[in-house]
């Protein structure tokens, strides 16, 4: 009997510890390292930053290490308008995209929730399937369509809507199309999940109490779908701020989003400290929405466990 209980306890600990340790090592710890690198200076060496923490040098080594840390990279971010503009542009693109996603995603999710029950799993699958067939491929497909000698211009010219091929690519419009296209499932699925849960008798009650259909939607359905709206909005907004691929492939060169800036600093300029500083600043910017999302997730977890 005692053995069983012990092994039970031991087993339970293992179940929690395995993913815990993995995430602590490969997710949490790296952030500390990024912070440290952001406080370092770029150097033509391998690794391309200094100082390097040398634990064998003991306490003295630690002190010299600390002395060499600097806020230069952060100073650069604050002073050079390139970075500030990138952050601003990213927030702007993310906000507008999220609004577009909401405007397009809500009717789709609502339509799915009102479909006959037997059809709904298929509709969910249909919405999810493109998402599983490779993000890069689908952006690439849009390049096909949007390029100068691409399909969109071809169709528009045949319909005599335009005379010469327009430049759809390399523009903000293309970025928005790409964002909406890629993140639509992230908006639709949480919305659908919360809409589908709404008990039909609540709408009947609203109707019984005098609400025509549109009012019942606005007073009952919409408020009850707000958790889904919040989840969908956060699942779109936060990652879009840091997006790289879409603006890189579909966007123009006039302005950059912060994901592109980070990429260039790291891969082209080989300036690891500045890239790290960009990452830390971006994390700080997104901290509040991320915490909000965590709270939403925890609340739904608790609600489910009750």
């Amino acid at each position, binding site marked *: 009997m005692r053995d069983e209980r012990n092994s039970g306890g031991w087993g339970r600990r293992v179940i*929690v510890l395995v*993913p815990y340790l993995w995430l602590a090592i490969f997710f949490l710890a790296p952030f500390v390292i990024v912070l440290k690198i952001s406080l370092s200076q770029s150097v033509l060496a391998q690794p391309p930053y200094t100082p390097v923490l040398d634990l064998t040098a003991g306490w003295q080594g630690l002190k010299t290490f600390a002395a060499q840390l600097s806020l230069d990279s952060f100073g650069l971010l604050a002073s050079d308008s390139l970075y500030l503009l990138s952050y601003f542009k990213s927030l702007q693109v993310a906000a507008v995209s999220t609004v577009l996603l909401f405007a397009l995603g809500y009717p789709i999710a609502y339509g799915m929730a009102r479909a006959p029950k037997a059809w709904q799993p298929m509709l969910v699958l*249909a919405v999810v399937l493109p998402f599983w067939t490779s993000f890069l491929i*689908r952006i690439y497909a849009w390049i096909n369509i949007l390029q100068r000698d691409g399909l969109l211009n071809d169709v528009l010219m045949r319909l005599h809507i335009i005379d010469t091929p327009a430049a759809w690519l390399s523009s903000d419009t293309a970025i928005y199309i790409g964002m909406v296209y890629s993140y639509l499932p992230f908006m639709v699925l949480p919305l659908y999940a919360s809409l589908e849960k709404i008990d039909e008798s609540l709408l009947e009650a609203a109707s019984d109490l005098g609400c025509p259909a549109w009012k019942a939607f606005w007073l009952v359905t919409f408020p009850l779908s707000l958790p889904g709206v919040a989840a969908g909005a956060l699942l779109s907004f936060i990652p879009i701020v840091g997006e790289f691929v879409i603006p890189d492939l579909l966007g123009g060169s006039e302005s950059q989003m912060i994901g592109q800036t980070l990429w260039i600093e790291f891969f082209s300029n080989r300036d690891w400290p500045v890239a790290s500083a960009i990452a830390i600043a971006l994390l700080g910017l997104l901290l509040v929405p991320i915490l909000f999302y965590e709270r939403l997730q925890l609340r739904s977890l608790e609600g489910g466990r009750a």
Partner: protein
Amino acid sequence: MKRGPSPFNIVSVALGLAFLYLPIVILVLYSFNASRLVTVWGGWSLVWYRELLNDAAILSAAWISFRVAFLSATAATVLGTLAAVSLTRMGRFRGRLLFSGMVYAPLVMPEVITGLSLLLLFVALNTDRGFWTVVIAHTTLTTCFVTVIVQARLIGFDRSLEEAAMDLGCPPFRTFMTITLPLIAPAIAAGWMLAFSLSLDDLVIASFTTGPGATTLPIRIYSEVRLGVKPEINAICTIIIAIVALGTVISSLMTKRGASQREQAALGAQV
């Protein structure tokens, strides 16, 4: 919500689906286009598929991607299921808040941040970057997606089945393995598939954490795409789409058949 769809609802869903699938359909069609140009239809042809077979770089990148995806999906499924069980069944253990924070954060974290941080970790640890670092990175990224799917299923799971098993003398661990696990298996499978396709698809994190000789397919495609549209890419994309679509349909059919059999059994028991 049941009342039946209005015309507006039907149109929204139809247009939404058309918007989602149109680029894919076009891509697939043009992979069979004999002409190089997108605006000219040169007739049906498999020429690009033949070119593809000769393109060793793309083929080796595809092979690497599949292996990375397979390994990382499997690892992520194990970790993700453990995490889901921890969050739903282990009560309030110490550090649960931090744990849930770490589990859900990758869902929203911009990939450039996670990619950069993982790379810096590998550099600090002095590990050679290549195949295995990408596998580790993808595992870390996709675990949270598996967790969310499995957790949702565990929450909706009828606990009285587990209680009945334990009442009949089955210890908790065995109950989990013989009762719970089989019934949540479809969710675990769905999690694996999602992790697989996310890994297969990932560009940013792979770019940060890869090394010489471990060029994944997205990295390869990305570098080609920057030079302009190449029809062979349409071909490889179509193949990937076909594989994923087939896999999804098969797994959903299997799930549906399994579920309806189980449902009928449960209903029979109720009567």
